[in-house]
């Protein structure tokens, strides 16, 4: 059920930004989701289709860009992508773990509207 509140949040943000820009139709929503968020986007489109019915984003396609996790080694500074299901260990020096530099993202990058459908022109 995690995906339901997340999807509600997405719709709320999209509607707000679209209204501010005077847009009446959103066709595509680009999201960035880090691998280390534990967030599985599979069912989001499903929830989105249901929730967006009758809104300006009805039928919009969600494009989800997965951001791989990236860890900076504490010992040597090398930035590496941890392997799924394995301990975080630097492939260069063997140092344990490190600081997360990417993979915790979860944001809406942009929305695409239909050509000519802009508040300025109506």
């Amino acid at each position: 059920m995690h995906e339901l509140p997340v999807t509600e949040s997405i719709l709320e943000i999209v509607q707000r930004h679209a209204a501010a820009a005077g847009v009446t139709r959103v066709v595509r929503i680009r999201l960035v989701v880090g691998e280390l968020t534990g967030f599985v986007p599979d069912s989001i489109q499903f929830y989105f289709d249901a929730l967006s019915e009758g809104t300006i984003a009805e039928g919009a396609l969600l494009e989800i860009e997965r951001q791989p996790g990236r860890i900076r080694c504490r010992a040597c500074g090398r930035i590496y992508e941890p392997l799924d299901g394995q301990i975080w260990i630097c492939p260069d020096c063997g140092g344990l773990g490190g600081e997360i530099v990417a993979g915790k993202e979860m944001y809406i990058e942009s929305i695409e509207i239909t050509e000519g459908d802009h508040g300025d022109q109506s």
Partner: protein
Amino acid sequence: MEIKVEEKILSANDRLALENRARLDAARVTAVNIMASPGAGKTSLILRTIEALRGRARLAVIEGDLASTVDADKIKAAGVPAVQINTGGGCHLDAVMIADALRQLALDDVDILLIENVGNLVCPTNFALGEHKRVLVASVPEGHDKPIKYPSSFVDLDAIVLNKMDLAPYVDFDLAAFERAVRAIDADVPIFHISCRTGEGLEAWVAWLMQQSGLS
């Protein structure tokens, strides 16, 4: 045509979490978000903590579960104010639920607020509540590979409580492997070895909690 948005999906939750934090700070309450998988011993740890801090600190508890008031009833029976949140099917607590629960508590009479999150090692970590400290309860029978399988749950913690240490001789739990996997994620986080059943190790945990709350 494309419009830039660049807004965090959970920005509304994050904003409300900051408001919760401000309310807690105004009432000088230290809030602790307690996360774990189901059955790790969150409620047992809270009950033991209540017992240990009786007369030393004023506690309150927010209980998150999918359904029932079983946990809050146990807390109230121990003489501590408790608010039960039932999330329905929800897999985690969020800042809205905490805001509602805070309204039901007399915060001025509370030193430490323990928030028991929904049993789940995945989702709670993404939702800020306004808490000051984040604690994960792991337990020996779950196995030593939890930090490898669920690394995001072990990020940004203030403490790890490893419960059910009394069962270590009976299950294949490799403590060194567990600690190595934790250290791969966090070099410094304190790990408390405890047993809520026997009471072993609880004093160190309680001393840490008092110190983090500015009460010792």
